């Protein structure tokens, strides 16, 4: 009763304001607000403009120069830096190839692994919660710590991996790991998956727990097996979560800069050089203009791969 009275009073007050505005000869726009409100986002806008927008725009300008990072003078070189990256720089194309391979390996392995873990640990039992915490634990470590832990594991002389293999009589499988150029990237991919799979598992668990139980009960009554239930209920329902996992893992894998530098040193050898480490090496080599061009290619590559993934995997329902 009192709610109705309040609403009526408010409506009356609004009507009387509108009448006053009309009497003054001006119509009040529904989008007009107190200008002080627009001051609130200004600090955030200023910070973003200064630290994000301006450097990004500057990168576009630097990318068409031969600036070395410290000279007062420079030359505009047009698109030469972009042409050089793709046609005259095998270190860049090698880093690009490595990065795409790394992304592919990590996205597939991490998505699959985190989904399997989530499926096994969806129930809120004590054991599941403990295991979830355990699998999530690497996520809270710093990437440098993770790099050093795995550097020790992979060391061929004192490392855990070879020690375990030797201990169980599998000396034949002992290897050089990061020292083997044809395998090094795979071993770093293993580290990356170990590092982040727990985090993605949490995203999947949230998605899985939102699926109504009734659907599974109905499917069971209809005689659907485990695989059919997964295919027809679980997978479609976790598609939005998969979309997040795939996109996030892609960006993460492109930017595995600190992990690579920690595990492979600076500069990393060619078999472990990815785009972000290559850009860093180019900056360190006092080729700021060229490094800026590489950075723009890097940005474009992440955007393109993420867009392609969403298109090809059709993970996002139409209209979203």
């Amino acid at each position, binding site marked *: 009763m009192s709610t109705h009275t309040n609403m009526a009073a408010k409506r009356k007050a609004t009507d009387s304001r509108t009448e006053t505005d009309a009497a003054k000869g001006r119509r009040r726009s529904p989008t007009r607000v107190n200008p002080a409100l627009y001051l609130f986002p200004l600090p955030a806008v200023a910070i973003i403009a200064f630290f994000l927008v301006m450097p990004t725009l500057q990168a576009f300008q630097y990318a068409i120069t031969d600036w070395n990072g*410290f000279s007062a003078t420079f030359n505009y070189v047009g698109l030469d830096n972009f042409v050089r990256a793709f046609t005259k720089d095998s270190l860049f194309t090698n880093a690009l190839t490595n990065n795409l391979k790394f992304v592919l390996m990590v996205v597939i392995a991490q998505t699959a692994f985190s989904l399997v873990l989530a499926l096994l640990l969806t129930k809120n039992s004590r054991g599941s919660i403990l295991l979830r915490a355990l699998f999530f634990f690497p996520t809270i470590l710093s990437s440098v710590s993770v790099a050093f832990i795995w550097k020790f594991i992979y060391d*061929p002389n004192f490392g855990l991996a070879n020690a375990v293999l030797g201990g169980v009589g599998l000396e034949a499988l002992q290897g050089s790991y*990061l020292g*083997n150029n044809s395998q090094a990237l795979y071993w770093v991919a293993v580290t990356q998956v170990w590092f982040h799979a727990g985090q993605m598992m949490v995203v999947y668990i949230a998605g899985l727990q939102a699926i109504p139980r009734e659907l599974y009960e109905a499917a069971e009554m209809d005689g659907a097996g485990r695989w059919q239930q997964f295919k027809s209920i679980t997978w479609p329902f976790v598609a939005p979560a998969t979309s997040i996992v795939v996109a996030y893992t892609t960006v993460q894998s492109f930017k595995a800069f600190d992990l690579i530098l920690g595990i492979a040193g600076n500069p990393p050898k060619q078999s472990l050089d990815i785009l972000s480490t290559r850009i860093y090496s180019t900056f360190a080599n006092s080729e700021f203009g060229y490094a800026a061009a590489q950075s723009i290619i890097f940005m474009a590559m992440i955007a393109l791969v993420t867009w392609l993934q969403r298109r090809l995997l059709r993970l996002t329902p139409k209209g979203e």
Partner: protein
Amino acid sequence: MSQISRRQAIAILGALGFGATAAACAGPGGTTAPGGATGPAAPATGAVTGKVSFAHWRGEDKAVFDELIKRFAALHDGVEVVQDISTSNDYNAQGLQKVRGAAIGDAFATFRGAQFKNFTEAGIYAELKGSKAAANYQPGLLTAGQSGQNQLGLPYQVVFPMPMANADLFDKAGAEIAPKDWDGFLAMCEKLAASGVIPISWPGGDVGNGGQLFNCMIANNAPVDDMCAQIEQGKLKCTDDWFLKMLGQYKELVPYLQPNATGTAVEPAQNLFSQGKAAMLATGSYHLAAVRGLGAKFPIELVFPNTSDGSGKFEGAYNATFILGVNSASKNQAASAAWIDFLSEPENAGYYANQTAQHVAVNNVEYTNADLKRLSPWLDKKTALAARFQFQNLDVRNAVEASATAVISGTSPEQAAEAAQKIVDERL
């Protein structure tokens, strides 16, 4: 207070965005450092007081510098020296950007080679020719800090990028510690292997430390002393016979390295040596303190892998680095120069040397550290200035050195050389 519409707000934010864009369009480049336009000038004189930032990468030397700072401050009232230390990798990559403008690094150090060259081109060094400090250095070692007629930096440390040897293991194996030629070196390795130890511990998984062996391997193989500079300029090639011969010699070392050497980081390589499992550590004398810290008690010598047939020009390799300088943009050049003068005095340089187990380029220093004393004769031998620091382009340096690592991991010398030359050619 008047009200504005959403459209007006968007217009305001758009104007801000346009302003940001315009600001972003300010071209790269910047002000030329004081020394850049007119050539370097000597540091300003004046009272030795105020704060001096000393930028360098030797975190392991912090305590020693702290003690020297204390002694310096005791001599000058009101002066304060603070150390701005980065890791060597960061310093190598970003040192110039950090020191430029002198927000930090009133006094600073640089690596020999590309970094010294970039600092020189950026006009960051003040002129130290004729300074009190420069007079204390061995003239032959000062060249690493010269650019044209200018003495811009003072190379403080002298290191020997040659394999360190466990003299006890050599004695036990009956191996000659100073082989005269390549056959002698291989025979020495063979004796060590026969005695049951790994002849050489080599950190092939660490580009920087693994590359030090290159200085020895190339010294007597190259036809000229500035071979790396000439490779970078395209005058010499990695596919030349002399370079292929060197890669062939790297291949001959494979049986004498620890298993999976290309995957070994520097710390495990040091451990193999300090635990007496390996007879040599193929990095350099700059790891003396580190291996002692790991518990090595045996006498340490240096071994030069002499690649010649006995007629080689050089008996070893050295590097003069940690090039001290005064920042031309510093607001406190008098105190900064005084700090460099102080470090360059024999007594203080001696303290630094003996505490950090590094030789220095300063004259009349008394080495009391047992390892330094033992290795001091190397200061008088005919050693080659470490060649890898002639490279000005780090991509070229890494590619050329990577050819040696590739050979050790099984690639043929010809293929490894071609791959390296391709990268050099792309950067000519």
